[in-house]
């Protein structure tokens, strides 16, 4: 095992030259290289790499450019590959460790620059009496940030690491720091911090808070998500911006309809229409994104002899996505959208007193949450119990929508209840939603692939493509039937007495 790297920060007053002069008095070293380098930190918008304790750096200098993945806790570089530039998506990288590591974490998310830091890098080799390198020191000299020193230990030379580390701390009075200190400082400089965006709702509500006030907090957070994703949705950076944008819209719509009578009815009516419109105009692009994201899966379901034949479907879907995206971008740049969203923001910012006229605005949020969750939960039981093997597909779709409402309510109000109990109930709901979601998705995809084939007929597409699409439709149908068969079992699990008791107990309003 090689020891982990150690990190130090130079005080503001100490330049790299001063440091090296001081170091020279006590240890034998050689400067292996000194070069101007531009370091750019990369991550996805939702910090998938940082969340997985990884720092992704792209270092460009005259002699080489490379991407490195660094363990954020230990500072150990575990992947380093030469790259001339950073592609937007990890699947555009050549096969290798970097691609494998990044693809698993980023999936469909784009790799975006987070912070760029031009600096001077000094590589220093600490030598023993045989002139063998026993420790490497990397000194990153920045213009406006603290200079960072990394002691990079070499296998079998732990004593040298310990000796130099003691020297830096005791004789040179340097402070230790973390491997991510430079990124953290740079973000602070930009008025940001790491993990400042996540797609999960992170609301903290006080149970005694008035329902009107709490609902405004919820809507404000959802609006922030909409605004944070808006620009890159228009620019079509990756499919997840639109996805998160749409989820925030759906949650807002669910809030307006389910957190009942906390805002004045005219306001609810007005913005329910606006957000429904937003849901509608963002739908076609998202649909195409989903087909494109599923494309590799579609291909994998086909017999090997037909896999190449489905390629024209990808081109067709891509064209449709580009078209839909263009229309969406135009609508999101329209004065209508901008004005209505700005008005909504203004409304949410306005002093609370003016909004507190609705019936439930003054009751505690806990009371309203109990009421609403209980009610929607009961509705799921009623709707689900009447579904049998001969029920129409619509009955399952309606139940899916009701489940979604309950899910959003539970997520809005999660902080009002014990974490573990809520987690357990959300999990049981999620399992039911998964089956209903699969049923709906496979059905819609089956219908749409048939529609696409009709549209593609006009484009001189080879007949084998239609053959492949036929096999795909058959597969989707089989999957749809399997989901339908799963429903009864999953619903029985969801409505089991233990769950019912848990729901009843957790959401019984105790005053």
């Amino acid at each position, binding site marked *: 095992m090689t020891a982990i790297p150690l990190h130090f920060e130079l005080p503001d007053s100490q330049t790299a030259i001063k440091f090296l002069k001081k170091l020279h008095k006590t240890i034998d070293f050689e400067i292996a290289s000194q070069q101007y380098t531009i370091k750019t930190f990369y991550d996805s918008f939702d910090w998938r790499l940082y969340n997985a304790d990884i720092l992704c750096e792209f270092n460009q200098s005259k002699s080489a450019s490379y991407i490195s993945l660094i363990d954020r806790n230990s500072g150990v570089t575990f992947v380093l590959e030469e790259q001339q530039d950073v592609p937007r998506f990890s699947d555009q990288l050549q096969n290798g460790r970097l691609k494998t590591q990044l693809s698993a974490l980023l999936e469909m998310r784009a790799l975006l620059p987070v912070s760029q830091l031009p600096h001077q890098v000094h590589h220093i080799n600490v030598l023993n009496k*045989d002139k*063998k390198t026993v420790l490497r020191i990397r000194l990153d000299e920045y213009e406006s940030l603290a200079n960072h020193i990394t002691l990079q230990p070499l296998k*079998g030379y732990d004593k040298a690491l310990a000796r130099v580390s003691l020297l830096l701390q005791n004789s040179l009075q340097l402070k230790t720091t973390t491997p991510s200190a430079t990124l953290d400082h740079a973000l602070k400089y930009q008025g940001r911090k790491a993990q400042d965006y996540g797609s999960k709702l992170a609301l903290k509500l006080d149970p005694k808070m008035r329902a009107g006030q709490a609902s405004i907090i919820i809507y404000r957070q959802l609006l922030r998500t909409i605004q944070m994703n808006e620009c890159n949705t228009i620019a079509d950076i990756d499919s997840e911006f639109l996805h998160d944008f749409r989820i925030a819209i759906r949650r807002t719509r669910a809030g307006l309809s389910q957190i009942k009578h906390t805002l004045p009815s005219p306001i609810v009516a007005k913005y329910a229409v606006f957000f429904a419109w937003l849901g509608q105009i963002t739908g076609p692009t998202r649909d195409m994104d989903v087909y494109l994201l599923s494309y590799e899966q579609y291909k994998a379901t086909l017999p090997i002899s037909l896999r190449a034949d489905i390629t024209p479907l990808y081109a067709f879907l891509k064209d449709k996505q580009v078209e839909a995206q263009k229309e969406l971008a135009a609508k999101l740049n329209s004065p209508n959208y901008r004005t209505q969203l700005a008005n909504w923001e203004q409304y949410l910012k306005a002093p609370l007193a003016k909004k507190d006229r609705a019936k439930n605005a003054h009751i505690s949020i806990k009371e309203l949450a109990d009421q609403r969750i209980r009610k929607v939960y009961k509705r799921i039981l009623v709707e689900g119990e009447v579904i049998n093997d001969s029920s129409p597909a619509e009955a399952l779709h309606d139940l899916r929508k009701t489940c979604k409402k309950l899910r959003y309510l539970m997520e809005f109000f999660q902080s009002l209840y014990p974490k573990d109990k809520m987690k357990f109930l959300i999990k049981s709901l999620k399992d039911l939603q998964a089956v209903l979601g699969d049923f709906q998705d496979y059905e819609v995809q089956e219908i749409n692939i048939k529609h696409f084939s009709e549209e593609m007929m006009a484009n001189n597409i080879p007949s084998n493509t239609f053959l492949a699409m036929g096999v795909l439709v058959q597969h989707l149908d089989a999957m749809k039937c399997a989901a339908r068969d799963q429903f009864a079992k999953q619903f029985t699990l969801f409505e089991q007495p233990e769950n019912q008791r848990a729901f009843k107990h957790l959401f019984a309003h105790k005053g």
Partner: protein
Amino acid sequence: MKIIASYNIKGGVGKTSTSVNLAYIAAQQDYKTLVWDLDPQGASSYYFRVKPKVKGGSKQLIAGDRNLDGLIKATDFNNLDLLPADFSFRNLDLVLDERKKPTQRLKKLLSPLTEEYDLIILDCPPNISLLSESIFAASDILLSPIIPTTLSLRTLEQLKKYIKDNKLKHLQLVPFFSMADRRKKMHREIIDTLSEKHPDILQTAIPYASDIERMGLERKPLGAYLKKGRSTVAYQLLWQELLARMNNHET
């Protein structure tokens, strides 16, 4: 992961320079590489400026009392580590003889390292002994430098016979000409006739060159002080050819 033994029954044929230089090239090409200096003379260790000293000596090492990983030293080059020699390695045969299944011992000791390294090169002492049997059992490839002389060729024949007699089917013998001096008529003739007769000999011949001898002064692999010379290129070609041979063998 591949284990390559740089081996010849004879001494002074270029085994150590082969180990050091091929390891350096492989490491430069991102193969995580380990050289194990099994020769008590410690020439590989010397070239990498690492003290030829192993804590506990050959006895503790062979007994498995010491974790091999803890004895490894990083060299001055990325992706390239060294398990240094120790003077006590001169007794490795005796130490092995005291163990049960002595010929399997090295393989067992190396197995935890196969996860960490893409390539392990064993720089072997010259002889056929219990240690070499253990090396043969552990290795995938027996890379054998041969000087183009009649005597060296006899040792190659001996080695082939030994592999055949002992049914070492897993072991791929890869001979190549080393210290070849094209100014010498005999070297030229032997290279030309034998390459035809023995197609398993690699095409690349490592020249007899003062550049290579300088390794002792520089205490570095050849490529670290001579980026473009004839000998440097020869080692690069040798590595490419060896790599192709390994890949072909796999498929």
